[in-house]
C-alpha cells in the first residue's frame, strides 16, 4: 500500500501502522518493590481483547536475578488462567500461531508458558530470552499480533539501554519506576523519546485515551508518518494543508480568515 502511494505519478501521503511491540522497561527498585503486581497487571494487559490491540505490550525488559525469575513465574501463572478467546479473523488466528512458532524456534529463547490453540482461538504464550540473544536476533523484535509475551533479561543497566537503543519505532514505551530508579530512568528517557509516540510510567499501554494530547503514532514501523497521530484531536492535522494568502482581498479569503 505504501509502495502504491509512493509510486503514483503524483505521490500521496500514506498513513499506516505497521507494527509495534510496545516494550516495558522494569527498573530495579520497581521490580524489587512490586514485581508481582506489575507481572499480574502485564498479564491482564497482554490478554485484553485476545491481545489484538496495536498497543499490546509484547516485551518486558527486566534485570536478571531472583526477582526476574519471580516476575516470570507470576506472569506465567496469571497468564495460564486466561481462557481461549476468539480472534477477529481466521487469518489473524493462523498468523498468531505462525508468529508463535517463529519465536519458539529462535535459538536462545526459553519457553515459560505454552498452550495449544486452534481454529479462530488464541491462548497466551510466554517466552524468555537474554538481552544479548534478543540483540543478536532481529526477528525477536517483530510484533506477534496476539497475547504473546517475551521477557528480556538484562545483566545490567547498560544492557537494558542497549535494548532500548536497538528498538524499532514504537507506538508506546512503558517505564515501571520507583523513586530510587530516578537516575537510571533519566538516562533512558532521551532514548525512548526517539523511539515512541507515547511514553508512559507505572501503567500499561492498552487503553488509548481520545483527547487533545494523545499521540498514537511513532517512528517507522509504528507509523509510516512520524509527524502524525491517528488518535485524538491532533489527528485532524493529517487532513489539513497550510495555505498562505498574500495580499488577498478580504472577500476572496476563506471564511475562517475573513
Amino acid at each position, binding site marked *: 500500500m505504501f509502495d*502504491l502511494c509512493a509510486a*503514483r505519478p503524483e505521490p500521496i*501521503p500514506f498513513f499506516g501502522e505497521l507494527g509495534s511491540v510496545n516494550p516495558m522497561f522494569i527498573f530495579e527498585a520497581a521490580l524489587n518493590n512490586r514485581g508481582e503486581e506489575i507481572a499480574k497487571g502485564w498479564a491482564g494487559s497482554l490478554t485484553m481483547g485476545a491481545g489484538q490491540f496495536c498497543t499490546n505490550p509484547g516485551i518486558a525488559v527486566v534485570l536478571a536475578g531472583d526477582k526476574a525469575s519471580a516476575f516470570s513465574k507470576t506472569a506465567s501463572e496469571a497468564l495460564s488462567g486466561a481462557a481461549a478467546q476468539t480472534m477477529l479473523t481466521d487469518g489473524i488466528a493462523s498468523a498468531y500461531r505462525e508468529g508463535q512458532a517463529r519465536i519458539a524456534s529462535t535459538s536462545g529463547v526459553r519457553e515459560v508458558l505454552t498452550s495449544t490453540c486452534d481454529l479462530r482461538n488464541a491462548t497466551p504464550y510466554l517466552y524468555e530470552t537474554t538481552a544479548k540473544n534478543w540483540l543478536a536476533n532481529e526477528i525477536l523484535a517483530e510484533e506477534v499480533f496476539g497475547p504473546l509475551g517475551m521477557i528480556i533479561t538484562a545483566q545490567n543497566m547498560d544492557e537494558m539501554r542497549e535494548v532500548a537503543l536497538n528498538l524499532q519505532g514504537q507506538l508506546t514505551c512503558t517505564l515501571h519506576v520507583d523513586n530510587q530508579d530516578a537516575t537510571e530512568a533519566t538516562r533512558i528517557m532521551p532514548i525512548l523519546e526517539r523511539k515512541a509516540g507515547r511514553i508512559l510510567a507505572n501503567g500499561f499501554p492498552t487503553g488509548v485515551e481520545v483527547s487533545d494530547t494523545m499521540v498514537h503514532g511513532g517512528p517507522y514501523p509504528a507509523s509510516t508518518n512520524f509527524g502524525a497521530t*491517528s488518535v485524538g*484531536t491532533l489527528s485532524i492535522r493529517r487532513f489539513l494543508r497550510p*495555505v498562505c494568502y498574500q*495580499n488577498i482581498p478580504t472577500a476572496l479569503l476563506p471564511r475562517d*480568515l475573513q
Partner: protein
Amino acid sequence: MFEPHGKHLIAGNWVSNDATFNSSPASGKSFAYAIGRVSDVDKAVKSAEDAFWSYGYSSRAERAAFLNTIADEIDARAEAITQIGSSETGLPEMRLNGERGRTIGQLRLFATHILQDDYLDIRFDAALPDRQPLPRPELKMVQRPIGPVAVFGASNFPLAFSTAGGDTAAALAAGCPVVVKGHSAHPGTGEIIAEAILAAIKKCNIHPGVFSLIQGGDRKVGSALVEHCLIFVQQGLNLFHFLVS
C-alpha cells in the same frame, strides 16, 4: 435482528453487484456482500471530488452539526450494531458497547474541537509598506482541508477505527469527503454504520458524495482507491489484513 442487504453505499445510493462474497462470522448467520469493483471506486471518488467543492467550503458549525448527527444516528442503532458486530468479530458485547461509546465520543469531540478555531493555526503578518529595501505585503495563513480521503477499515476496531471511526471523523471534521474501503471481517457492521451516516447526510442536507462505503472482497478495490488521482490515503489502525491475506 439486523439483516444486512450487502450493498455498497456510493454517493447516497445503495449499489449491488451480482458477484458477492460471504461474511465469515465468529457466530451466527453468514450474509452475502457485493464485491467492490474498480467502477464503484471511480464513482465514489468522483462524487467525493464533487462534494468537496461544497463540503470543503462549509462552515465549521455546519460540519460540527453533521458530526453530532452521525453520532446520534449511530446511537439510535446501538442494539443492532452490537448484535451484528459481535457476530462478525467474536468480540464480546460489552467490548462493542464500549467501542460504540468511544466512536460516538470521537465524533462529538471533533465537533467541539472544530468549533474552537485553534486547530486552524491561523497566522498573520501585517503589511510593512515602509520596509526597506522592499515593502512587505500582508500575509495570512490557515490550514485548509486536503480534499477527498480514502480510509481503510481496521480489523481490530470494527467501530472506533472503521467506517465512522476516528479517521473518518477527523477527515469529515477537517472538511474532507471520505471513501471507506470496508474490512471484509465486518461488512455488516460497516453497512449499518453507513446507513447511520446516510441518515445524517439527509438530515443535514449535505452533498451525498461526502461519504461512500465500498465493501471489500477484492484486493483491486484497495489498489484502485490508492491509484485514483483524486485521493489521499489513510490506513486504519492496523495493516494486519494486508500482511496475512
